[in-house]
Every structure is written in structure tokens, then in C-alpha cells.
């Protein structure tokens, strides 16, 4: 009975800013709920990338929620496995995994591990060992093109990940092979495990670096919906090169207490702070 597969519906996409904001807000609620259950974790990253993921998942990515392995789907490749909390929020919001399952995040035996494994529906690649995502994304883009599929590959990597040499090996390959259906999104939240990249190992100027490697490069605020939409529109209008969008984001975005906290890669939250966090999220427009 193969007919059932082809009947699977594509996720409807929108470029309406109000609708995308609502998606991002819903994803942040999911992030807080997951983080509250485990009591700590990558809540800062999950909140910070919610706007960008909302734009990717609900305005750009061609997927079929009921057919997650559809061969012509666009790929979203999460290099930075610890952003899984944000990805699970997007997958649940898109209907690719059940919303109720989010309550198992980080629990023993759950497939929603703290770092996203590819054995989980909707996760294209096991990230977490940084510097893998762009190399595999290059391979996916080469393979899709060879097979005549017009699917695109979106890779989310981090500012700190630009310190991995393999990221730049892959950047060379993406430009050399003219992979114009490959899009690297570099989340700059100015925070890696040992502190700010400028203190740990300077990586700027990122725009110039990606451009010098032959990528069509843009830099926008990761919380400016019209700017993000415009950047993706520009990508669609620019053939012949791979694309990089450097997005500047604020860790903890949407929850004032977390935005203002002394920045930490892995935030610890006291049990009595969650009520405040939830309240602040609802107050944020």
C-alpha cells in the first residue's frame, strides 16, 4: 500500500511575521517546560535560537510531518547537539514529534536526549561533537544535487564552532562545489563553554571570513523577523554559491531574568525561579 506515503501533507509555510512570532512564543514555552523538568541546562540556547528556528521551520523548510524521511524534504542539520532543546520545541510545534513527549526531555530512557541523536524522528544527524555538521551538510547537498532533487540543506552551527578546523574544510568544499542549496546559519550568542569567543579564541570578523571563503554571506539580528525573512529571500535570489547567515542572538531571549544573568553556557536555575521565568516570557512581546 505505497499510496499512503505520497498522500502525506507538507507542513504549510508562512511569511507572516505575527504567525511566526506566535510560533516562536510557543516554542519558548516548550523550552521552559523541558528545562524546568530537568531543572537546568541549555535553556539559554533554546530561548535564544527560537526566533531563528521559527523562521526556518515555518517559513522555509519543506517537510512532511507525517513522513519525516520523505526523500525530497529539506534537511535541517543541527551541528550543535546541545541546542536539542530548541530543536525538539520546533519539531513538536511542527507536529513531527508529539508535544506530550517533550516532558521526557533528558529523562533516562528517553529518545529526547540532551544532545540530539539521529535515532530520534526529525533529527538528521547526531551533532554534539562540534565541527561535523557542515561537513555532512556538504555531502547531503552533493548527494541531493546528484539525484536531481531540489531539496535544500540548512545547517545550524555556532560561533564557537567556527573554531573547529573541519568547519572551514567544509566551507572550502561548499564553495568549490558551488552548493547553492546549502545554507549555513551561524548562531552568534557570544558564549561558549569557557566564555566569550573573543576571550577564548577570536573568530571575528565572521562576515568577512565566510565571504572570503566564497559564500554569499549576510549578517542579521536573530530576533528581527523581517530581517530574517529578507535574508532568506535574498538567498533564494542568489544562485551559484552556498549561503551563510550570521545571526546575532541573545541567550535567554524572551525571559528577562535569563537575558540579564551573567552569561553561562549551561544555566543553573533555582526551583523558585521557574514561575518568574514563565511570567516574564508571557509578558514579553
Amino acid at each position, binding site marked *: 500500500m505505497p499510496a499512503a506515503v505520497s498522500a502525506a501533507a507538507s507542513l504549510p509555510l508562512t511569511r507572516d511575521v505575527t504567525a511566526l512570532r506566535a510560533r516562536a512564543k510557543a516554542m519558548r514555552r516548550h523550552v521552559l517546560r523541558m528545562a524546568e523538568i530537568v531543572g537546568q541546562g541549555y535553556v539559554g540556547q533554546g530561548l535564544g535560537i527560537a526566533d531563528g528556528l521559527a523562521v526556518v521551520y515555518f517559513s522555509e523548510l519543506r517537510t512532511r510531518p507525517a513522513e519525516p524521511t520523505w526523500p525530497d524534504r529539506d534537511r535541517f542539520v543541527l551541528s550543535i547537539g546541545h541546542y536539542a532543546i530548541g530543536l525538539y520545541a520546533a519539531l513538536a510545534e511542527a507536529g513531527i514529534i508529539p508535544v506530550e513527549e517533550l516532558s521526557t526531555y533528558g529523562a533516562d530512557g528517553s529518545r529526547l536526549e540532551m544532545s540530539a541523536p539521529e535515532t530520534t524522528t526529525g533529527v538528521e544527524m547526531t551533532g554534539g*561533537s562540534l565541527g561535523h555538521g557542515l*561537513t*555532512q*551538510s556538504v555531502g547531503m547537498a552533493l548527494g541531493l544535487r*546528484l539525484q536531481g532533487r531540489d531539496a535544500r540543506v540548512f545547517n545550524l552551527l555556532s560561533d564557537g564552532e567556527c573554531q573547529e578546523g573541519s568547519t572551514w574544510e*567544509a566551507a572550502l568544499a561548499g564553495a*568549490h562545489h558551488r552548493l547553492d542549496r546549502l545554507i549555513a546559519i551561524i548562531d552568534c550568542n557570544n558564549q561558549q563553554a569557557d566564555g566569550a569567543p573573543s576571550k577564548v579564541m577570536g573568530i571575528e570578523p565572521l562576515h568577512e571570513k565566510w565571504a572570503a571563503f566564497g559564500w554569499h554571506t549576510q549578517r542579521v539580528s536573530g530576533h528581527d523577523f523581517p530581517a530574517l525573512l529578507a535574508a532568506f529571500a535574498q538567498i533564494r535570489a542568489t544562485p551559484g554559491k552556498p549561503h551563510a547567515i550570521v545571526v546575532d542572538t541573545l541567550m535567554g531571549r524572551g525571559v528577562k531574568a535569563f537575558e540579564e544573568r551573567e552569561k553561562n553556557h549551561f544555566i543553573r536555575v533555582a526551583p523558585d525561579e521557574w514561575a518568574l521565568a514563565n511570567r516574564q516570557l508571557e509578558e514579553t512581546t
Partner: protein
Amino acid sequence: MSNTSPIAQRPAPSAATPPRGVTGNILTSDAAGAAKTETAPFGHALVRAGEKDPRIVGLTADLGKYTDIHVFADKFPTRFFQMGMAEQSLIGAACGLARTGLVPFATTYCVFATRRAYDFIAIGAALGRANVKIIAGLPGLTTGYGGTHQGIEDLALMRSIPGLTVIDPCDATETAQATAAIAQHDGPVYMRLLRGVVPVTLEADYKFEIGKARLLVDGADVAFISTGLMTTRALEAARALAATGVKAAVLHVSTLKPFDRTAVAALLARVPRIVTAENHFITGGLASAVADLAVDERLPIRLKRVGIPDVFCESGSLPYLAERYGLTAAHLATAAQEVLR
């Protein structure tokens, strides 16, 4: 405080040093003296596999000509991807290609694949169960280029990765058969490559099968358990021993992982005097697999391990290196006599 160098410096040769062999061109394989050879058996086998299966693609990290995959690239230019001198990118891209349903064969040298790109093989290929085939040239002492190019510990590294199939073919016949077999196998594979002009030493009726050891010669006195090109030397040693009345078995174990525990255990139980032979560091490869099995199965054996000792090897001609590091057929025969004592 001492000012001495941490690495002992080698002395200049004395005037009396006699002339000897020279480091061969890196292109040259160890086919000297072989009665029969084939050229680029991997490349031609990959073309045959590619003709049957359009999912097969090739890629390399600036070593196309030196890993025989140029044969495939010439035949299928659009199905071949040059990744430049970047092994992490090579393996990562291969994994990505596999995730789109293709069957990528990625080539470089053993040393670069396993030392430089280990994490990409362990995580991208093995943990991710990507259907990639990593084909790695210059195994062990098949190059005279010294420690940078001699893959002496690659089997140990690859054997320690869960879910990875690890193969060390003996000759041109097996290289071609194994290429066809792994093309049809669903899962990540690391295979050592004999390239260029490769000897044919196995019998015409030899059949390679992933995970199966083959008893090439039977004998009740002593048994060689060998892998890779060392099987050719084990066969030679067995013939030499036969001339002295010693009956030596030769069990060829070309798949290091999954290890054919049944065949090896049966041999250990029957012929407990064992010599292992591998073109690899004596720890972590075939000898270790045999020793682990003997312990697990509580089999009392006497084991002599022939392989590369715990050193980085010198540059030099291949015969010189085989002699210097104890990998010749004569060394194997001597080892057999030692376990018989």
C-alpha cells in the same frame, strides 16, 4: 638542567656502510617477485560495482591517483567528488552522501583516515550508521615513507569503534571481491587498500565473505592465523615448514571485525600452537583478537605474535623494512618453530 633533545639523533653513516635498497616510490606496491599481478584491482572492481548500482559514488582527499579510485572517476566523472586535502571533510561529506541514499566510497591513506579523521569515522559513520566505505591505502609497511605514512595502528583504532566492519584483504583477488561485497553491505566499512600493481596469491576458487575466516591450508602441528598481505607470507612459511616435515595450517582472517569467533575458536581448540601474522602493530589488531578469544573461551594456547613492534618504523625499501621489523616468511617459520618447542 639538561639541554639534550628528547629524541635521540641518528648517527651519520660510517664510510664503510655498504650500499643497500632505497626507499621506493610511494606508488610502488610490494609486487616484487610475484608470479601474477593485477593493476588497480580496487578501482576496476569499483567500476564494475558502479555499473550495476547507480547509488555508488566516489570521493577522495587529493589522493585519487594514489588510491586507484581515479579509475572510477574517469568512468563516472559526475559520480566522483574531489574534496581536497581535508580528511575530516572527506569522511563528513561521505556520511552526508550516505544520508541521501547513496553508497559513497571515500579514499585516502590509513594514517590520514584513522589519525586525522577518527572522530568523523566514529561519530559520523559508525554511531550514525552511515553507509560509507572508507578505503585506506598504505597499510602497515607497504610504503617506505616512514612513520607519517605507514598505517601501523589503524586496525586497532578501527576495531575499537562499535559497529564498524574492518577488512584487511590479502591480494588483488580478495581486494576485488571485498570491494563488490562491501558495496552490497549496508553499514559503515573500513577497508585497507592494496593499490597499484598488486600480487595475486590466493587460489582462483577463493571466495571472500564479510566476517568469514578461510582455512587455506590445514595442518595439525602449528597454525598461522593471518590477515592482509601477511597471509601470502604465511602460505610461504607453511610450504617451507612442510619441507621440514612440520604440518602448518593457515587460517586467513581478512575481516577483523566482526571477528569470525567460530572458525578461530575451532582452530585454537584443534591446533593450540598458534602464530598470528599481521602487517600492523602487534597490539590491538589480529593478535589481540585471537588472545581475547582464547581467554573468553578458556582455550589453552601457545601464541607467538608476528607483527610490527611498539615503534614508529624507519623509511626504507620494503624488503629492508620487512626484514628489520620481522615480517618476512622466514620470521614466520622461525616463530612457528618457537611455539613448537
